[in-house]
C-alpha cells in the first residue's frame, strides 16, 4: 500500500520538525517527508489541509478486556477505538481473566491483534502468577512472546519480600517492572480522602496509600537497580517523591492518566459512578501538581487508562460501581486541552503521547524503538492525522469502544473537546478514516 498524505502540518516532537509538508508512505515505512517526487504513485491520498500530521499516539495503559471480560470489551471493538483515537501502539496491563501469566495467552493476543492490524499491541506480563503476589512468572518466556514489561496491574504486592525478589529478578535481565504505587491496606477505599469523601460518607484512600508504596518502591529500586515505570500517579506528594528520586538518578519513569490530569474529587458531584476511578480523583492541588509535572517532564507520559466497563457494572451505588472509564478515543483531545491550558506548543504537547511513551518502553520495543512515536524518513509509518481546530462532543453513540462510560461525557461536562482525528495509519496501512 502506498499512501500520500498531502498538505498537512507535519510535526515530529523529537527533531522539532514543524512545517507544511507532504508525507509519502510505502511498504510500511515513511519514504519521504517534504516534497514528494511526482513519480510516487499512491494507492491512497489523504488530504491533510488544515490538519496536523503527527506520529501515531502511544498509550501506556489501555485495557482491551480480553480474555475474560468480553462483555465489557473485545479486542476488535477496543482496537477500533484505538485507531479512531489516533492511537497506533498501546500497552495493555495483565489484569485479564486469566491474567497474562502464560506465554500462550500473550501469543494469542498478539496474533489476533496482528490479524486485525488496527493498532500495535504491547502486553505487559503478570509479575506474579495470577497476580497473586506470591510466585514469579516465567519472565523470559513471556518476554519472548512479546511482553514489554511486567506488572501487577491494580493488585499491589503486599509482601515486600516478594516485591524485592521480583525487582531483583527482573533487574537481572533488564526487564522493566510497571507498578501503580498503592498500599494494599490503605488503598481499600472508594474515593480520595478529603472533604468530598468525608461529606459523602465514602471510604477514603489517603495520599499515604500512594506515598508509602512509592517510598517502598524507591527504596527497593535503590537496592536492586531495577528499572521501574510508575503507573498513574495521583497526588502532589507522589510527584514530589518522584521528582526527588529522578534527581537522584534512579531508573524511574512515570505516567498520569487523562482522568487525574483533568478532574478532581469535586467532580463526583452527587455520587456519579462515572467518576469511580482508580487511582481515585484527588484534590485541586494534586491535579495542578500533576499538570505541572507533566509539563516539566517529571511525569514522562500521559495515558488513557482506558477501561471499558459495562452498564450493569457501572449503574450501581458509587462504592459498588466498577472503577474505570473509556479513554482511547479521548486521549488526543485531552492532551490537546491540557497543552493549550498549560501554554505548551503542539510539538511539546504531542511528545507526551508519542515520543515520551516510546522512551519509557525503550529497548523493549526492539527495532521499533528508533522510529515509533516519531515521523522520520525510513521510519515506521505510524501516523495520526488530526484537525486541531475541530471540536467534538463525547456522546456514547459516537464512541467505537464498547465502554461508553466516561467522566468527559457531554451530559456531565456540557463542553466539547478540542481536536478530531481524521485518519490513522498503522504500519503503512490505513486503520481509520473519519466519515466525511
Amino acid at each position: 500500500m502506498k499512501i500520500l498524505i498531502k498538505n498537512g502540518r507535519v510535526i515530529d516532537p523529537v527533531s522539532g520538525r514543524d512545517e507544511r509538508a507532504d508525507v509519502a508512505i510505502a511498504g510500511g515505512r515513511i519514504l519521504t517527508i517534504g516534497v514528494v517526487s511526482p513519480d510516487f504513485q499512491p494507492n491512497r491520498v489523504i488530504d491533510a489541509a488544515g490538519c496536523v500530521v503527527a506520529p501515531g499516539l502511544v498509550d501506556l495503559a489501555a485495557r482491551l478486556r480480553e480474555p475474560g471480560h468480553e462483555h465489557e470489551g473485545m479486542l476488535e471493538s477496543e482496537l477500533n477505538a484505538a485507531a479512531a483515537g489516533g492511537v497506533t501502539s498501546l500497552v495493555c496491563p495483565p489484569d485479564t481473566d486469566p491474567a497474562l501469566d502464560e506465554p500462550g495467552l500473550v501469543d494469542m493476543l498478539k496474533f489476533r491483534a496482528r490479524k486485525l492490524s488496527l493498532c500495535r499491541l504491547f502486553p505487559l506480563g503478570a509479575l506474579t502468577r495470577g497476580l497473586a503476589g506470591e510466585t514469579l512468572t516465567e519472565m523470559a518466556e513471556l518476554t519472548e512472546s512479546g511482553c514489554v514489561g511486567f506488572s501487577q496491574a491494580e493488585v499491589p504486592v503486599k509482601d515486600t519480600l516478594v516485591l524485592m525478589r521480583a525487582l531483583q529478578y527482573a533487574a537481572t535481565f533488564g526487564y522493566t517492572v510497571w507498578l501503580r504505587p498503592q498500599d494494599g491496606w490503605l488503598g481499600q477505599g472508594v474515593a480520595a480522602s478529603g472533604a468530598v469523601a468525608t461529606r459523602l460518607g465514602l471510604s477514603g484512600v489517603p495520599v499515604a496509600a500512594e506515598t508509602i508504596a512509592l517510598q517502598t518502591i524507591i527504596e527497593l529500586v535503590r537496592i536492586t537497580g531495577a528499572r521501574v515505570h510508575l503507573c498513574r500517579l495521583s497526588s502532589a506528594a507522589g510527584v514530589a517523591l518522584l521528582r526527588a528520586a529522578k534527581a537522584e538518578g534512579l531508573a524511574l519513569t512515570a505516567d498520569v492518566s487523562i482522568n487525574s490530569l483533568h478532574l478532581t474529587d469535586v467532580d463526583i458531584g452527587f455520587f456519579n459512578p462515572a467518576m469511580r476511578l482508580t487511582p481515585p480523583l484527588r484534590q485541586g492541588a494534586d491535579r495542578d501538581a500533576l499538570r505541572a509535572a507533566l509539563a516539566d517532564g517529571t511525569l514522562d507520559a500521559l495515558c488513557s487508562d482506558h477501561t471499558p466497563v459495562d452498564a450493569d457494572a457501572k449503574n450501581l451505588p458509587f462504592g459498588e460501581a466498577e472503577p474505570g472509564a473509556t479513554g482511547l478515543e479521548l486521549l488526543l483531545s485531552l492532551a490537546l486541552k491540557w497543552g493549550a491550558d498549560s501554554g505548551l506548543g503542539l510539538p511539546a504537547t504531542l511528545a507526551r503521547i508519542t515520543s515520551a511513551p516510546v522512551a519509557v518502553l525503550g529497548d523493549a520495543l526492539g527495532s521499533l524503538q528508533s522510529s515509533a512515536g516519531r515521523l522520520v524518513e525510513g521510519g515506521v509509518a505510524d501516523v495520526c492525522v488530526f484537525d486541531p481546530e475541530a471540536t467534538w462532543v463525547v456522546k456514547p453513540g459516537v464512541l467505537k469502544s464498547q465502554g461508553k462510560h466516561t467522566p468527559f461525557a457531554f451530559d456531565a461536562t456540557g463542553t466539547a473537546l478540542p481536536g478530531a482525528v481524521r485518519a490513522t495509519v498503522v504500519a503503512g496501512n490505513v486503520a481509520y478514516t473519519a466519515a466525511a
Partner: protein
Amino acid sequence: MLMKRNPQLNAHGELIHLLSIEGLPRAVLTHILDTAGTFLSVNDREVKKVPLLRGKSVFNLFFENSTRTRTTFEIAAKRLSADVINLDIAKSSASKGESLLDTIANLSAMHADMFVVRHSESGAPYLIAQHCAPHVHVVNAGDGRHAHPTQGLLDMYTIRHFKKDFTSLSVAIVGDIVHSRVARSDIHALTTLGVPDIRAVGPKTLVPGDLKHMGVRVCHSMEEGIRGADVIIMLRLQNERMSGAMLPSAGEFFKNYGLTDDKLALAKPDAIVMHPGPINRGVEIDSTVADGSHSVILPQVTFGIAVRMAVMSIIAGNDA
C-alpha cells in the same frame, strides 16, 4: 464541570425527594419542622389518620435490615392513609442476584408512588431517584455512612422543641462519627439552621481531622467536648467497632467517652441528652443518664413519626 441541580429539588426549588439535608435551604428545613408540628396532634387523636396520601402506595425498600426505622416510616405512612408495602430486599431480590435498578424498575411497574430506601452503600438513593419514574418520590431512610435525613430532621425538631432558638447553641456529637450517617445529617442540619458551635467528640479513629471540613470543631477529649454544651447527641457504637483496630474495647470506650452523670455535669445545667437509638447501655451512655431528667430520647421517637409524616406529605405534594 457542569454542576447539576440538586436532584432533591425541582425547577421551582421544591422538595421532590429527601435524599440528604446537605444543600437544602433553611426555609425548606423550617417548613418541614413546622409541618411536623401540625401532625403531632394527629398522633393524640382517637382516630390517628389524615387523608393526605389516600390511594398512594408507599414501598419500604430496606436493602439493609432495620426494624425501628422501617416501623416508624410505616406508622407515618399509615397515619397519612397510604397503602404501605414492606419489602425486605436483603432477603429477597438482592439475594437472587437481581440488580438494584431492575428491582426499582419492577416496583415502578407496580405503580409505586414513593420509595423509602435504606441501603448499605452511600449514595444508593441518589441512583434510585435518578432512575425511577418522574412521579415517584424517594425518601432516604439511611444510606451507608452518608445520610439519614429524617433522623437529622427529627433531631432538629427535638432541639427546637426544647431549646427554641438554634442560633446561640453549643451542640456536642459524641462517638463514632466517621461511620455515622446520623452525625452527617445532624451536622448539615445544625449548620444550615445557624448553630454556631458544633463539636465532634471521640478518638481519632472515629473522629478524624477531616471532619473539620464539615464545619465542626473536632475534640478528642470528652471533657472539652461537652463542657458548656446545650445539647449532647450520643451516637450508637456499632458492635463491629467495639474491638479491633478502631477501638480496643467497649469498656475502654465507655471510660473515655461514655456519658455518665459526672461528665454530664460539665454541660449546661439545662442540657438535653439525645440518642438515635437503639442505645447500648454502659457502652456509650450510662443507664442513669439515659433514664434521667436530661434525656429526651423517648420524645425523639414520638417526634420522629410526625417528622416522617411531614416529609412524606410535602414531597408527595410537589411535582418533578
